[in-house]
């Protein structure tokens, strides 16, 4: 079949891109070659719209072993231990087929981590759905949760934390972001760069089928009414095979047989072979008749584009084939030598003894298009002047109950009860806290991880929003007593060809970069998901930050539940009462305008380090950051978790109690202090010039504030705990 411009466009390429291909090749590509170009040049694989901006990110730090550009990022946590981690989106497939879409998202990210030689030790996820009233939301949520659980539970890796939000902008495009952390000896990390000529290229794992063909192109397009037709582009997951693949790979990695290894994720065999060769500046020759296939008569085109799951490509040391095959035989997995590295710098495909494709590698990788897309700055919205008289009709106790049962604040236990969060026997902080925490097996260390995003703030002002999420992640780690080390990000945005969406992306990245630089909290891995748009309606900008921190002695981990009657409770950090973009404004005043709270990076750092110091000195017994819903929401959660009440002091110099209790100012924490530590805590706070309010003391079984609030904890718990369960059952 003669390849025409129309066929190229059908493959998701632009007219200009097709001309460029013909020009670079100095001929028209055949269909298989075109497919390879389309797979490598789409947004998902080439980062053509984002690359220019991603380059500016802050990616270096003392503890960074590997930054962006590999299968996952790697950080040093001391004693030769390293943590490998990354977050990745699986948005498009999950909307089309929630169970398989979410499941293979989890499978894919775990492969990225164990490809580097690390045993996965924790999973997290950040999932975002349309309005609860939307007819598809309930089923999508159910399917996604079952998919995440179905895969992670079977592999036996605990899911230790997550985030779930609802917003109408996700009605036609849900977001499913999955993150995995793995543990590896820092001297035994595996990379994807192939070296050496004539080395055998090995295919291991599942057989190749026709599933997922064009998956990466589908993920680089917007949706329309015909999305049902895209179902065949969604891959099907097999967690059992992945578990075998994990064990077999780690077994083979115990010696020095592997030169390079890469999982077959998006664009399958195409991108894995091209990337390995490209990084090593080599050529690669593959005999496609040797690829284990699950279906009959698969063509080179199909073999190269299949996104069948649970497959790996390995460049092996010569002579190690028998040894490696034995391991994969033991685990009942396919093992085939399918090619070799060459010095041609081309990818050459052989099928039925004929050369069916030959493309210079650099055309696919370095010469892939890069776009400097036009973008528009978002102006900081004007701060609102709230009519305080309007507040008079409200009652504090009604407000807090309403906020606690808000879909984005309410307890998500219905979800994480379905995830195995205790397997591997090292989970010391379960989902529902500020961050999940797992011990580094057999040591005193523990690793904390959290996923965060703030689409409302990012939508209102992307630059501030970008900064804010990094700070939120930083605070969540500090709240469990962990020193923040590095982040991974999953940048979910609308259509980059629209100036507004592109501007949201550029400015969020700018904000993330600024905050991560200031807080010494570098980005070590991530992914970009554009085109989250259906019928011209895009999502709110939703960059998700996955933060990782270290607790050097796990006995010093903090939790948020109030511990002991009589202990004092402080709010650390200054409260100005910023209500614009708050849950309070949305839920009780129906007000959606205004700017997000200002981010002051100096305060974030100073206050964060101070709180960490207090926890290292064992001076505080519980801690929780103040975020959505403000002080009263944070305190309520601490009461509910600890099954203890609080008596709140009459606050001096308070301008407005609603602003104080529900304002979403940044850089704040709530801490619980035993009386014996009080003097030392005050000294440290004063020495570091950290503002604090003496909020009250842990007391009884109710939240009490003057005559305004007298709420039994059980009543608050009822408001908080059952919204999701009731919603799912209704």
């Amino acid at each position, binding site marked *: 079949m003669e390849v025409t411009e129309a066929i190229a466009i059908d493959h998701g390429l632009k007219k200009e891109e097709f001309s460029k291909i013909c020009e670079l090749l100095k001929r028209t590509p055949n269909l298989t070659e075109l497919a390879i170009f389309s797979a490598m040049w789409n947004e998902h694989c080439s980062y053509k719209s984002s690359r220019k901006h991603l380059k500016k990110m802050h990616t270096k730090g003392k503890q960074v072993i590997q930054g962006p550009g590999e299968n996952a990022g790697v950080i040093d946590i001391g004693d030769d231990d390293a943590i490998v981690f990354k977050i990745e989106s699986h948005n498009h497939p999950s909307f089309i087929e929630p169970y398989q879409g979410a499941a293979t998202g989890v499978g894919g990210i775990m492969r990225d981590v164990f490809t580097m030689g690390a045993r996965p030790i924790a999973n997290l996820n950040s999932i975002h759905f349309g309005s609860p009233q939307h007819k598809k939301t309930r089923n999508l949520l159910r399917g996604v949760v*079952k998919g995440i659980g179905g895969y992670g*539970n079977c592999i036996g890796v605990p899911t230790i934390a997550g985030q779930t939000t609802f917003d109408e902008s996700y009605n036609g495009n849900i977001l499913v972001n999955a993150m995995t952390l793995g543990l590896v000896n820092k001297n035994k990390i595996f990379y994807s760069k192939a070296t050496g000529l004539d080395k055998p290229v090995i295919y291991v794992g599942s057989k190749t089928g026709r599933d997922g063909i064009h998956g990466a192109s589908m993920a680089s397009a917007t949706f329309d009414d015909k999305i049902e037709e895209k179902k065949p582009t969604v891959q099907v997951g097999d967690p059992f095979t992945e578990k075998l693949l994990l064990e077999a790979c780690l077994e083979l990695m115990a010696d020095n047989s592997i030169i390079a290894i890469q999982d077959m994720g998006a664009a399958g065999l195409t991108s894995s072979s091209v990337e390995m060769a490209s990084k090593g500046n080599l050529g690669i020759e593959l005999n496609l008749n040797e690829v284990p296939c699950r279906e009959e008569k698969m063509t080179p085109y199909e073999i190269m584009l299949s996104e069948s799951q649970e497959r790996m490509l390995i460049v092996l040391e010569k002579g190690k084939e028998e040894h490696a095959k034995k391991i994969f035989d033991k685990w009942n997995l396919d093992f085939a030598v399918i090619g070799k590295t060459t010095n041609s710098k081309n990818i050459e495909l052989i099928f039925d003894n004929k050369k069916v494709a030959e493309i210079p590698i650099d055309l696919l990788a370095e010469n892939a298009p890069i776009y400097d897309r036009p973008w528009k700055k978002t102006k900081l919205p004007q701060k609102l002047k709230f009519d305080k008289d309007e507040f008079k009709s409200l009652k504090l106790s009604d407000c807090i109950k309403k906020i606690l049962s808000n879909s984005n604040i309410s307890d998500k236990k219905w979800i994480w009860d379905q995830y195995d969060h205790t397997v591997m026997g090292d989970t010391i902080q379960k989902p529902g806290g500020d961050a999940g925490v797992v011990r580094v097996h057999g040591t005193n260390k523990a690793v904390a991880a959290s996923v965060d995003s703030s689409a409302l703030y990012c939508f209102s002002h992307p630059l501030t929003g970008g900064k804010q999420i990094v700070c939120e992640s930083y605070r969540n780690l500090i709240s469990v007593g962990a020193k923040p080390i590095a982040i991974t990000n999953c940048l979910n945005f609308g259509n980059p060809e629209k100036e507004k969406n592109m501007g949201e992306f550029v400015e969020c990245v700018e904000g993330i970069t600024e905050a991560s630089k200031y807080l010494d909290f570098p980005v070590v891995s991530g992914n970009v998901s554009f085109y989250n748009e259906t019928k011209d309606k895009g999502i709110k900008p939703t960059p998700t930050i996955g933060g990782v921190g270290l607790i050097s002695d796990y006995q010093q981990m903090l939790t948020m539940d109030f511990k002991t009657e009589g202990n004092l409770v402080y709010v650390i950090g200054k409260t100005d009462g910023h209500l614009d973009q708050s849950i309070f404004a949305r839920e009780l005043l129906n007000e959606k305008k205004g700017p997000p709270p200002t981010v002051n990076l100096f305060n974030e750092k100073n206050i964060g380090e101070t709180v960490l110091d207090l926890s290292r000195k064992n001076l505080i017994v519980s801690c929780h950051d103040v975020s959505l819903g403000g002080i009263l929401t944070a305190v309520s959660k601490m009461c509910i978790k600890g099954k203890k009440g609080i008596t709140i002091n009459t606050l001096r110099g308070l301008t407005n109690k609603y602003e104080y209790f529900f304002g979403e100012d940044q850089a704040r924490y709530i801490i619980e202090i035993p009386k014996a530590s009080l003097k030392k805590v005050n000294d440290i706070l004063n020495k570091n010039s950290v503002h604090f309010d003496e909020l009250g003391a842990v007391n009884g079984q109710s939240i009490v504030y003057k005559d305004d609030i007298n709420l039994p904890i059980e009543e608050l718990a009822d408001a908080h705990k059952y919204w999701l369960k009731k919603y799912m059952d209704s």
Partner: protein
Amino acid sequence: MRSSVIIFPGSNCDRDMDVALKKFGFKNQMVWHNDQSIPKSDLIVLPGGFSYGDYLRCGSIASKSKIIKSVIDFANSGGLVLGICNGFQILTETGLLKGILQQNKFLNFICRNVFVKVKDKQNKYFKDLKKDVLELHIAHNEGNYFCSDDELKSLEDNNQIAVTYCGEDGTENETTNPNGAIKNIAGIFNNNKNVLGMMPHPERMIDKYLSGEDGSLFFKNILDNFK
């Protein structure tokens, strides 16, 4: 006391079990499913997980694996065989234990702490155990125990019901039953009480930084009874 943990492809609590057994002083070895025989042991454990992917009924393929004949012979000669979670499912599939494990009543995977009541202490697992109610952890999708009326009667008559789901105070009712199991059954014995299958995971409750410590009591008690 010597123990052996069998690893099936898809087992995922094998390491956790190994860690727990060794922590309390068992001399433990890991045994691969394709092996023909099991090293000399006083206890054989079938760990949790998804053996062979659980792609037929849970545990059914494992019940036909190479190693399983040795497990059955060992059990029939009076040896202690403990099946946790998927291990319990495998034991029902081999016929060493009665009944079956169906999908949970509300059709969801459940991962959380539960209380179980120890119903019988005339056996090598629970004899002289100081507590009557243990806080353990469950993580399963198919833990809804079911058996015929006749089987249930004989389990009850022979005191073969090992543990039942209950509240903190020992109350057994519908609200303390997480998965719909008949009579709140969380674990049962064979006729001779040397084979125990149960859904809760004691190996996940072995120090105070985890979900709890009652799993420690369980393992220590087996050791105490062996001495």
